[in-house]
């Protein structure tokens, strides 16, 4: 088998790559990712990502995500781009009497708002507080004189950060169902179930 040959030959690479230090951890770089810090920036970025996703899904073409030309608005030395917040039907999942249920609502595509809706429907999620949400994919950026074009990758990761004491609500069997409802809600919101997404939650 070809992969077996590759695996075996890897065993014969230079010793510098196989010494004991390779079994240790190295600090991983921070993601080159989109961070939702405030509702304002979140709104702009969600639409940017949503636009790319939708644009790519519909047209299969690359979508420019930032305009650094004179069309962009310059404020106090910073260049920003005005984008309207997308609003559409989003399915929110919730766990009730041990069953997974869902409800579709028309709302703004902002992670904090979606999380708020999810929390309202899941009574046991009372303690959970939204901190931020990162979205990343394996795409690449092409920068030229006036535009930055983002070629969307085929794998996405969504990393949701919640407050420290949120962790305990996801403990036990009920907690697992709760987490599953949160995951389904965010995956549905982000890719309508059509994209290859990975979802993770961390606490801080």
């Amino acid at each position, binding site marked *: 088998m070809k992969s077996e040959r590759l695996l075996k030959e890897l065993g014969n690479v230079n010793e510098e790559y*196989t010494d004991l230090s390779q079994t240790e951890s190295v600090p991983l770089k921070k993601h080159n990712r989109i961070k939702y810090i405030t509702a304002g920036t979140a709104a702009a970025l969600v639409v940017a990502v949503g636009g790319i996703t939708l644009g790519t899904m519909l047209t299969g073409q690359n979508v420019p995500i930032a305009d650094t030309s004179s069309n962009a608005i310059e404020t106090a030395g910073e260049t920003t781009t005005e984008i309207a917040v997308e609003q559409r039907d989003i399915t929110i999942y919730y766990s009730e009497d041990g069953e997974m249920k869902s409800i579709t609502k028309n709302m703004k595509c902002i992670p904090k708002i979606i999380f708020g809706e999810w929390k309202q429907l899941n009574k046991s999620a009372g303690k959970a507080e939204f901190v931020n949400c990162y979205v*990343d994919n394996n795409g690449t950026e092409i920068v030229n004189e006036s535009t930055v074009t983002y070629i969307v990758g085929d794998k996405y990761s969504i990393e949701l950060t919640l407050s420290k004491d949120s962790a305990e609500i996801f403990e036990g069997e009920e907690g697992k169902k709760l987490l599953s409802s949160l995951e389904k809600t965010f995956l549905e919101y982000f890719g309508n179930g059509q994209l290859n997404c990975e979802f993770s939650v961390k606490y801080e």
Partner: protein
Amino acid sequence: MEDSGIIELYLGRDEGAIAQTQQKYGKQCYKIAYNILGNREDCEECVNDMLVKVWNRIPPDMPHNLFSYIAKMTRNLSLNRYSEKKAAKRGGGQTEVALSELEECIPSGKSVEDECDDNELRDALNGFLGSLCTEKRTVFMQRYWYLMPISEIAQKHGCESGRIKMMLSRIRKELKLYLEKEGITL
């Protein structure tokens, strides 16, 4: 004991060398074997076989890096045992999963005659590893050299498994492109 001291014991044909090797690196070697085989008995046998092999090979061998030398030996012995077990349909550990992941790195070949030899493949792999940044290389080697489970790698680096999976997926794509660019056919 320092590695140089252990090697001195081997060179002096002092059987204490085996005990010192086992004490210092036995655990790590057992882990490598376990990641490949997933079976305690087989791992113990592989580690014992490795100790005998090291005893028989030093001298004349004079390893610069004792850990790399015995880790490589353990890995090869474990992979051979894995192949034997697979033939007897009793595979285990991380190997099967790692192999299916590595399928993604195989460049599209033309014919059997075009297959590269082992030296070419090894040079290409060394070149590729050299081109990676430390963090990517460490994660890649932990997965495909030490056959560590993804969850363990994630734990070591203090991140979610999803991030490691994503990183590995990208590195596999890079490796495929690299091998294709180098004209390597498997």
